[in-house]
């Protein structure tokens, strides 16, 4: 009886692994193709699905020319520029959104429904709607051409997406936890930091990761607010490779994209370990 179950378990596991790997390959194939195509000449890229360039026509120069992205700076200089606004942005987003979500999800106060509705409604608005009025506002405030313009909104919990997300997760935690903490003499802030945050740690990390990743790819914001060439971010620098007036070397663009992706993938890999820890802290209902 046990033997049968054990065998069944193995088969199950094998099938599961095979499926996961097969699907995984389909999913990362485009990335592999992009990496391989960084070594190809233009004409070997289009129409060619093979990951490897034809032998005899391997372009090894793309990565070095991508490394020295512009004549003035390496690709990592622009990466650093992106970090100059992205790190504050992620930091402020995590803090302000968690705080705001806590109040909306846990505290009863006048206008709670209104605030929640406001969060949802602002979630729905396309960024374009805000862009020009805010540009005029920021110009008057002298914020143009500063990195601050790209993260100042996040000090004030501007991301409805993350607020909403944290609210939903907080609502999966039973209120008894809070009540127990109050009995123990904790105030609001302590409940938040000592009880709730540890429980939803995976979510907080997810918020940080997502905020960071989306910020890396953001192009429109820096485009409008940063004017000095030495301040431009990685996403803008990559776009420049695509300009239409000169011949586009696709291999170089792909190489640059690969380089730009590496930190993100590494970050994600590192961050995803926390999910394992999260399993152990599922809120003390044992």
């Amino acid at each position: 009886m046990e033997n049968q179950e054990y065998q069944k378990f193995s088969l199950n596991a094998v099938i599961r692994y095979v499926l996961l790997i097969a699907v995984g390959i389909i999913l990362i194939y485009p990335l592999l193709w992009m990496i391989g195509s960084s070594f190809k000449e233009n004409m070997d890229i289009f129409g060619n699905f093979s990951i490897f360039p034809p032998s005899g026509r391997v372009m090894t120069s793309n990565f070095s020319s991508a490394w020295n992205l512009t004549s003035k700076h390496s690709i990592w200089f622009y990466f650093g520029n992106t970090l100059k606004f992205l790190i504050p942005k992620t930091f402020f987003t995590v803090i302000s959104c968690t705080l705001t979500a806590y109040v909306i999800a846990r505290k009863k106060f006048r206008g709670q429904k209104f605030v929640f509705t406001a969060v949802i409604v602002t979630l729905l608005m396309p960024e374009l709607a805000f862009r020009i009025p805010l540009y005029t506002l920021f110009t008057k405030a002298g914020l143009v051409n500063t990195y601050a313009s790209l993260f100042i909104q996040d000090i004030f919990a501007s991301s409805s997406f993350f607020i909403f997300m944290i609210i939903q997760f907080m609502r999966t935690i039973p209120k008894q936890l809070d009540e127990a903490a109050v009995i123990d003499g904790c105030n609001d802030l302590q409940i938040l930091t000592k009880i709730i945050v540890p429980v939803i740690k995976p979510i907080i990390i997810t918020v940080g990761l997502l905020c960071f990743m989306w910020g890396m790819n953001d192009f429109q914001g820096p485009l409008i607010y940063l004017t000095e060439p030495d301040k431009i971010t990685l996403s803008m620098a990559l776009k420049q490779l695509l300009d239409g007036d000169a011949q586009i070397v696709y291999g170089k663009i792909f190489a640059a994209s690969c380089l730009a992706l590496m930190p993100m993938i590494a970050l994600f890999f590192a961050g995803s370990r926390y999910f394992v820890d999260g399993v152990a802290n599922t809120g003390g209902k044992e």
Partner: protein
Amino acid sequence: MPYIMLAPWIIGFLIFKLYPIIVSFYYSMLEYPILGEPEFVGLQNYAEILTKDQTFMKSLVATLKYVLIGTPAVVIVAFFVAFILNFKLKGVNFFRTAYYIPSILGGNVAVSILWTMLFSVNGPINIVLGVFGIEPVYWTTDPRFAVFTLIILKTWQFGSTMLIFLSALQGVSKSLYEAASLDGATKIRQLFSVTLPLVTPVVLFNAVNVLVKAFQEFNSAYLITKGGPNKTTYFLNLYIYDSAFKEGNYGYASALTWILLLIIGILTLILFKSSDKWVYYND
């Protein structure tokens, strides 16, 4: 006390959200050449959009197709994958990263080129279809099918949705599964009776977010199909952008934004109202 903790949000809301919203609404009632003198025209922009604008109609249809097919596709696939990845597997970290990579690639040029290649008439997708006896499809040049290339792209990028589901699944206490097991429930039964109900708040969250994000899709249509053919992938966000920055009709673009907002709002409201029936909150 709550108001103090809410203060940052209140300030942010007033300055960075409410103010632009009001200004944008005001603009929508103007005939506003982007660099010229605005002229108050009341609801004329809205009337024109809803009655005379053929591009708007095509754009609306394209967007709705994309949203109404793409949203369930993404949510279902994301949940399914998160469920599978929730087990203690060797190398689970590697799998999670691999499954998230499509999302990181985002609006990458390489992806858009690869996508057009994949869906070209002699490309792999048609070859696979041929195995099942299906005639080759002109994916990107056939007005009927172009939007599906984008829907498939979006489904391929289920990463962030999956991530969020994974976080939720991790929060479901193991003891519940053990109890259900003891009661004789199979794994499938456990999925539907234990897991699913407990993560419904997150299902709602993901559904709303994927819906809203889908309505605001810009990059993929811009890069891959460029809104065509025949505007069958000319999503509303693309139309709004062109209206404002290419055609320079800022008032009109603002009105379009408000109509888009209204549509998103109605659908989201439907989703929320229905959630009373199927979402279970633990508090």
